[in-house]
């Protein structure tokens, strides 16, 4: 476990500008600008408000678990953070979201840069039905890594990072769909890492996997801690307890879910401020 998150994102790849942008400003320090700041974020689909006035500050290099009952808007909150919400019909986001201080809801926000900086992992592993190599290569080409050798270098690096290199090094041309579910999910994580993001949004990345494959992903999240700021949506409280540094609990209210409690893991599990939090965490813990 990396209890003390210190890592230099710029040193992630030899030549940190490989994929176009510099990460130098995001070197974490104890009291540096938070990775992600949400202030009074309200999300509505058409006229139905799903999230109301959510405010959060996520520190750099930490793993934050986003908990809450099904349908309380955890995924919606995640999708606001890389503006994937733009693609969803009738979705309106109000409030203020900042990624390393930069207002990402502003009209002038460069979506390409934002989404490169804020990677996303979906619940269902979604590699392109192309070759393993192509899955990593395609985003790299798109983001201007023209040198094939450099692409291969990054590919090996990220596949090693997710523990997939030994398993696939001899069959990079094989279709990504020939991998197992857990391997596919790790490939997707590698694909996101290839773009050298600062923040990773993970939407229940283990829930479609068997416990062993899921455990492997969980271990991986632990390994990525410190190097990336991670937001992890999960229903698995054990998982939150094992990997999260901070825990945020969203709770559905009649007029949209609100943030019930946000605290470091030890605090929220042992001494929750809110009665509901205690009930939820204990009740669901069995």
């Amino acid at each position: 476990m990396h209890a003390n998150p210190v890592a230099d994102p710029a040193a992630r790849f030899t030549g940190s500008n490989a994929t176009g942008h510099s990460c130098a400003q995001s070197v974490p320090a104890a009291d540096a600008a938070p990775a992600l700041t949400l202030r009074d974020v309200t999300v509505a689909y058409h006229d139905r408000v799903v999230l109301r006035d959510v405010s959060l500050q996520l520190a750099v290099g930490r793993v934050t678990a986003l908990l809450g009952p099904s349908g309380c808007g955890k995924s919606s909150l995640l999708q606001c953070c890389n503006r994937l919400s733009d693609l969803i019909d009738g979705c309106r986001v109000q409030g203020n979201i900042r990624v390393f201080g930069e207002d990402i809801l502003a009209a002038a926000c460069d979506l390409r840069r934002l989404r490169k900086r804020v990677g996303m992992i979906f619940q269902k592993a979604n590699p392109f039905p192309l070759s393993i190599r192509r899955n990593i290569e395609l985003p790299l080409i798109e983001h201007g890594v023209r040198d094939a050798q450099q692409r291969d270098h990054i590919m090996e690096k990220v596949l090693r990072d997710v523990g997939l290199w030994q398993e696939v090094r001899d069959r990079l041309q094989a279709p990504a769909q020939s991998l197992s579910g857990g391997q596919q999910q790790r490939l997707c994580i590698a694909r996101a890492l290839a773009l050298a993001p600062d923040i990773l949004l993970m939407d229940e990345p283990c829930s479609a996997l068997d416990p062993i494959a899921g455990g492997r992903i969980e271990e991986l999240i632990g390994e990525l801690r410190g190097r990336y700021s991670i937001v992890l949506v999960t229903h698995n409280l054990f998982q939150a307890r094992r990997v999260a540094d901070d825990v945020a609990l969203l709770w559905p209210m009649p007029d949209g879910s609100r943030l019930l409690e946000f605290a470091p893991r030890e605090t929220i599990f042992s001494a929750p401020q809110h009665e509901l939090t205690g009930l939820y965490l204990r009740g669901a813990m069995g």
Partner: protein
Amino acid sequence: MISSSPSTSSPWSIDLLLRCWQRLAAAVAGGVLLLLVAYLIAESLPALMRIGPLALLTDPSWHPLEGSFALLPMVMASVGIALLAMALALPLGLAIALFLTVYAGRRLRAIYVAMLELLAGIPSVILGFWGLVALVPVIARWQAPGTSLLAAALVLALMITPTIALLSHLVLRQAAQTHALTTAALALSHYAHIFRVVLPVAMPALASTALLALGRALGETMVVLMVAGNVVQFPASLTTPVRSLTANIALEMAYARQEHRSALFVSGLVLLLVAGGLYFLIARLQRGDKEQAPVESAA
């Protein structure tokens, strides 16, 4: 879901009935196909035995009453018309499908799809009629008589373009939607989304769409009968009047006797073999498609 209907009262007999009915339906459908093929083969046998399959290819001409049975010019005409129609319709249909998937807004797309469906629903005899009175005279001004391989291919292309466009649109749209969030999350450009993800992913399905259209073009009778000219000869140029296998059967079946009749059945058999081959190919492609994307079907 647990049904609330009182099916538990007699589940056994209903299930049995359903099973019998389904088996009967399946047996009838399969049986008809087998009978059809058996009948075609049986009727073709006299020609194949007495004239011989080689003679069907090498005879100098098609004069069935004088015992000359050259099928090859008509095979060439059929294939030529179908391939030319495909060459015209495939790029057009794909371009329309791409436009509908990528660029058209919701309303424009709805209008377009409705129009294409209408076009696809026009009976071929009407298209043939239009070709005869509108298209053939135009070609005739260039190269008499106008009824020709080109005329048939053009009308056929018009006929299969909406089918290709509509089917490809469905395929492309599904692929585009499946990967929309992924490509957006990776900040891929619109161009990369369409041309580096959606098209490669949809390729097997697009190929089977194309084969389906080719099958339709090969089997089409009425249009070809009306505008191709029906002269049995090798298609020397685009404007040569030609006769397809299908038109040949339709034209001569009414008065054909003995070997002549049997020779027509041989041409039917040839068509069936070509169509069967195409469907076999489609099945192979679709199977390959599924093997490539098992997750899609499991989800």
